[in-house]
């Protein structure tokens, strides 16, 4: 038992969560999870929903300010009612609205909530971008930071850094799907996913606490992976459809590198990620011409000193020192500008350098979130000189990238009206 306020507050919060106020449901019960667009590109995105009806589906997409200019795309409904529609041929850097339409012989009989998203900037275009970022959104918590982001900010995309669902206790595909249903029927999740495109990775709780690919039974890992792929729309690699790691480009301003820090771990070979993923990341970072390189890294790469934090070091990059060192040394030695690590998992918001001294000491990592979780139970939180800020408050980050000044403004927001921290990093 921990004699900490976080223990007490966590227990109180957990108790309180059983009494969450009833939430406004979706427009149609046939679309209980609302809608989303995943992995937006310069010409489209993957439009997603779960449909529990029996009629045919299509997706209507229109420029946000031109509601009469509708384009329709047929939408196949796959197993478990999942519909994932690759929408293409749109104008870059434009806001679009969309909705799923259930129809019988072309006659509309039902309609989903309306979503919106912005296509990515065209190749070569340099313009400011805004991303929302968070992690750890346990479905039994209020998730107010997500609601705030969806209602107050127009983000080019929202970056989910993992633990979007807490699927602990699930063991097979059915129970994983049930956990996702609990998570995505929550109003904050629906509002957020409808408000902009999403780019997501997974972390341990999409599988099981402290999951490591080589230590989770293969059937369980595959059930978790399949359920995650069903509910998080992202572009699968046709050559390797099980692969999660990928990169997305937003014109000349940003390239987003999405890592899989869980399923490829191999303790026997001391690999945190596969050799293929590590080489892909290194070559991708070196070759990228984007002003900013955002690395979605579900578990921190930062060195957190002290007994409280070293206890859990084996579960993050620090537990695999050879790969961590190889990557950080490569980044330090290669002229890679504009790199920003984005991470979650830790149940506390942190802004600071990856290392205090030596390798990685010039690299910045932002730990965003938790959007809804008990705070990290450490009695002491990171502070200077390595760290600029840390918080125990549930939060989400708004990240403004300005390619003209090569600066990244980082704002930590709580679920109410407070800005917890506001700073700008020069990443040139």
């Amino acid at each position, binding site marked *: 038992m921990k*004699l900490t306020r976080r223990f007490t507050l966590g227990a109180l919060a957990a108790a309180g969560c059983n009494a969450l106020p009833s939430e406004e449901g979706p427009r149609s019960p046939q679309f209980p999870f609302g809608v989303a667009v995943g992995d937006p590109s310069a010409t489209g995105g993957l439009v997603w929903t779960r449909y529990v009806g029996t009629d045919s589906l299509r997706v209507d997409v229109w420029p946000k300010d031109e509601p009469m200019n509708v384009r329709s795309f047929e939408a196949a409904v796959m197993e478990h009612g999942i519909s994932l529609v690759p929408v293409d041929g749109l104008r870059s850097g434009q806001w679009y609205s969309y909705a799923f339409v259930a129809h019988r012989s072309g006659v509309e009989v039902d309609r989903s909530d309306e979503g919106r998203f912005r296509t990515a900037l065209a190749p070569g275009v340099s313009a400011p971008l805004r991303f929302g970022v968070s992690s750890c959104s346990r479905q039994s918590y209020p998730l107010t930071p997500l609601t705030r982001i969806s209602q107050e900010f127009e983000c080019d995309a929202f970056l989910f850094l993992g633990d979007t669902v807490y699927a602990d206790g699930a063991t097979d595909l059915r129970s994983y799907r049930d956990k996702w249903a609990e998570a995505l029927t929550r109003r904050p999740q629906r509002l957020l996913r409808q408000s902009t495109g999403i780019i997501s990775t997974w972390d341990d709780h999409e599988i099981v606490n402290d999951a490591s690919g080589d230590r989770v039974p293969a059937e369980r890992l595959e059930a978790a992976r399949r359920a995650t792929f069903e509910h998080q729309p992202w572009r699968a690699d046709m050559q390797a459809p099980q692969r999660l790691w990928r990169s997305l480009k937003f014109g000349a301003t940003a390239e987003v590198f999405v890592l899989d820090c869980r399923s490829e771990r191999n303790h026997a070979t001391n690999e945190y990620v596969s050799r293929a993923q590590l080489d892909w990341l290194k070559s991708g970072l070196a070759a990228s011409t984007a002003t900013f390189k955002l690395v979605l890294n579900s578990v921190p790469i930062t060195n957190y000193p002290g007994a409280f934090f070293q206890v859990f070091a084996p579960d993050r990059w620090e537990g695999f020192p050879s790969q961590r060192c190889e990557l950080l040394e490569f980044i330090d030695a290669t002229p890679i500008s504009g790199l920003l690590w984005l991470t979650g998992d830790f149940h506390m918001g942190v802004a600071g350098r990856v290392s205090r001294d030596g390798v990685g000491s010039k690299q910045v990592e932002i730990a965003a979130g938790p959007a809804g979780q008990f705070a990290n139970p450490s009695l*002491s939180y990171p502070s200077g000189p390595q760290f600029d800020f840390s918080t*125990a408050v549930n939060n989400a980050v708004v990240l403004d990238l300005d390619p003209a000044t090569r600066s990244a403004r980082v704002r930590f927001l709580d679920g109410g009206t407070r800005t917890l921290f506001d700073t700008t990093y020069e990443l040139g």
Partner: protein
Amino acid sequence: MSSVLVAALLLAAPSEAPRAATPGRTAAFFTSAILTAAATTTLSVIAAGAITGAPVDATGRPSPIISTLGVAVGVGLNFGVVHLTLPWLTGLVDGDASAARAGAWRLSRWGLLAQGAGVLAMVVGSGLEAREFGSGQALLLSGIVTALIGGLVVDVLELVGAWQGARP
């Protein structure tokens, strides 16, 4: 705490003859004492948690020294209540409360000393942590563990000491 009330009623009941240490009264004493100690520990942990969770920072960051204060208050509360009540409960078996308290103190002070050392470690750890993040965490962690284990030791030794003191 209901056990304390039951014990109080038993103790307050008019009695012509001295209360003998019958198996029933012995069981009542140990049951009351154990439940009292458990309830006190729970209350102490809640009190310590409330102080530790005091809103001292707008970003919700913990303050190691406030956490240390919370642990110190929990230690003091637990010892104070247990040391007052357990010897008194020996009246159930016709024990002498003063002698029981002296017996309890003779043993439990070592547990209290360990808890004090734990709190001291936390104070030092807090100071180190304030100077440099990470440098005092080992002391904070060992201090809180020592204080917790010391609390259990205090409760057990109070019980044993009170029993021995009451019935030399």
